[in-house]
């Protein structure tokens, strides 16, 4: 019997064939630390009386509250800079962007590798078939100190996306549909192995990042996209990096992209996924485009395409936060930003923005927000009863123009009615 992609990666690293259920201790390629937990990380290292074994394998990204929103945060970020310099590890400072986007752009998360991140959306690295997984500060500190971590080799759920994306659908809709089908704990402790077939191979790196990003919302340990399409040109792929045809899966599901419709995750759970039609007309106060899920150049392009020649509805705040400085530069160079700003959008510093309710667009009691992010939990973006609807950049843009939840297609119909 063959091996899944997760089993392949962990077997390679363990130096022996390992299968689902076994325990392995493996060396890791990168340990990624974000600003919001750096204080705990330093404290744990002190408790261990240790410093990073391989400083070049530790990367700190200042992104969760960047720039600093108050003195506590400013102190924490100052400590990061000083510590980074002293230890000699990489520090990406305010404005460079969101950790996951930055690690991909910098080539620090690579096919066949293992990257631990102190952020649950570290599954994102799976877009390039890198075993990325999120852990807490203690595990992260232990990994930095030892260069290793322990993992239970996960069972695998195979998710096959078939066909070309329907014109009104996006990778976000595909990802939300996956979470709906699997449910929020459908892949707990497991690897989600994503196969793109019959035209779906054309999904870009950016779209694959969106898919892998959302796998953790089904509880997954990692979300590995089997390399295909442009990934084959962009990366040096080890020849062993593919699942065996006779690999054993705990479960297999298929999603047909060709008849997919726009989706939205309704408060307060990510697997509470409906067709946009179901909630069309819901008035919104804020629209947020950004995050590690949907803050990339192609996302901004989609928003600009819809906003071109239109204005954001009165009383609606449209916040746009590019995922990285690179995205911001490109969107500036190609004119996308001007289109967004002319429509009435507000721009934020590349980083996580208001995704976890700390700054740059916190919600008041009773407010409604459409967000391109990945979590709509109660109180996530501010007040406990504020409502977050998760959607694609297309739906977010159309909603910003209409002032209520809608699709670009419905917006066109209204315009021509």
């Amino acid at each position, binding site marked *: 019997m063959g091996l899944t992609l997760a089993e392949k990666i962990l077997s390679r690293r363990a130096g022996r064939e390992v299968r689902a259920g076994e325990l392995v201790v493996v060396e890791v390629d990168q340990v990624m630390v974000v600003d*919001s937990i750096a204080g705990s990380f330093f404290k744990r290292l002190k408790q261990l009386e240790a410093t990073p074994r391989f400083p070049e394998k530790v990367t700190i990204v200042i992104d969760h509250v960047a720039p600093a929103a108050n003195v506590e945060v400013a102190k924490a970020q100052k400590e990061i800079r000083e510590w980074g310099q002293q230890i000699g590890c990489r520090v990406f400072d305010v404005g460079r962007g969101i950790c996951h986007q930055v690690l991909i752009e910098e080539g620090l998360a690579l096919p066949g590798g293992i990257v631990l991140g102190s952020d649950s959306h570290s599954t994102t690295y799976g877009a390039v078939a890198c075993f990325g997984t999120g852990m*807490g*500060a203690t595990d992260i500190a232990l990994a930095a100190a030892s260069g290793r971590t322990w993992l239970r080799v996960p069972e695998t759920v195979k998710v096959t996306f078939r066909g070309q994306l329907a014109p009104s659908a996006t990778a976000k809709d595909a990802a939300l549909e996956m979470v709906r089908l699997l449910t929020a704990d459908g892949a*707990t402790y497991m690897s989600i192995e994503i196969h793109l077939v019959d035209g779906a191979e054309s999904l870009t790196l950016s779209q694959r990042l969106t898919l892998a990003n959302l796998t953790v919302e089904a509880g997954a340990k990692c979300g590995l996209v089997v390399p295909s399409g442009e990934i084959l040109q962009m990366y040096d792929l080890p020849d062993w990096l593919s699942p065996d045809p006779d690999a054993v899966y705990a479960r297999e599901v298929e999603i047909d992209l060709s008849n997919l419709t726009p989706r939205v995750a309704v408060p307060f759970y990510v697997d509470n996924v409906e067709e946009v039609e179901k909630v069309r007309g819901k008035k919104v106060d804020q629209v947020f485009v950004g995050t590690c899920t949907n803050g990339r150049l192609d996302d901004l392009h989609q928003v600009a395409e819809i906003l071109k020649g239109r204005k954001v509805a009165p009383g609606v705040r449209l916040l746009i936060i590019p995922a990285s400085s690179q995205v911001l530069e490109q969107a500036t160079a190609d004119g996308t930003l001007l289109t967004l700003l002319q429509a009435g959008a507000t721009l934020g510093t590349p980083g996580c923005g208001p995704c976890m309710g700390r700054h740059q667009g916190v919600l008041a009691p009773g407010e409604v927000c459409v967000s391109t992010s990945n979590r709509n939990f109660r109180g996530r973006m501010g007040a406990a009863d504020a409502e977050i609807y998760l959607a694609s950049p297309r739906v977010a843009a159309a909603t910003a123009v209409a002032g209520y939840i809608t699709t670009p297609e419905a917006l066109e119909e209204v315009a021509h009615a």
Partner: protein
Amino acid sequence: MPRVWKFGDAINTDDILPGKYAPFMVGEDRFHTYAFAHLRPDFAPNYQPGDILVCGKNTGLGSSREYAPEALRKLGLKAIIAKSYARIFYRNLVNLGIMPFEAPEVVDALQDGDEVELDLERGILRRGAETFLLKPPPAFLLEALKEGSILEYYRKYGRFPGERTGG
């Protein structure tokens, strides 16, 4: 006597500690006072050390923020009984030395406010004359829990629980 604080399914880490109350936002000395601030504001002010958290399915889903369970530990939490756990949260509990019992039928039997006694080592919970047996976590994790937390384990042995020695 310790009491039960009962919660439902899918209690996420934003419920346990909202992001805006992270230690790096409000300071190391205060963050735990915001535990369950949105979902159950009476929790943190009334929680007594040793009280037990009883939760449903997929407990602790969401963010990897270890300071969520750390806030509970700071309040004096030593054990959670749940129907099931999200992956990162489960690791965080073990790493912090909080015992994660998985016992769906016990969760169903317990009510909010029940007065209980927990024998952590033997995994025995008593409510009046009733006794519930709680299955412990896997052996390799118990090794770490026995040392207090995985940090102490690693400091003492220089390896991970279950890791082969000499390599």
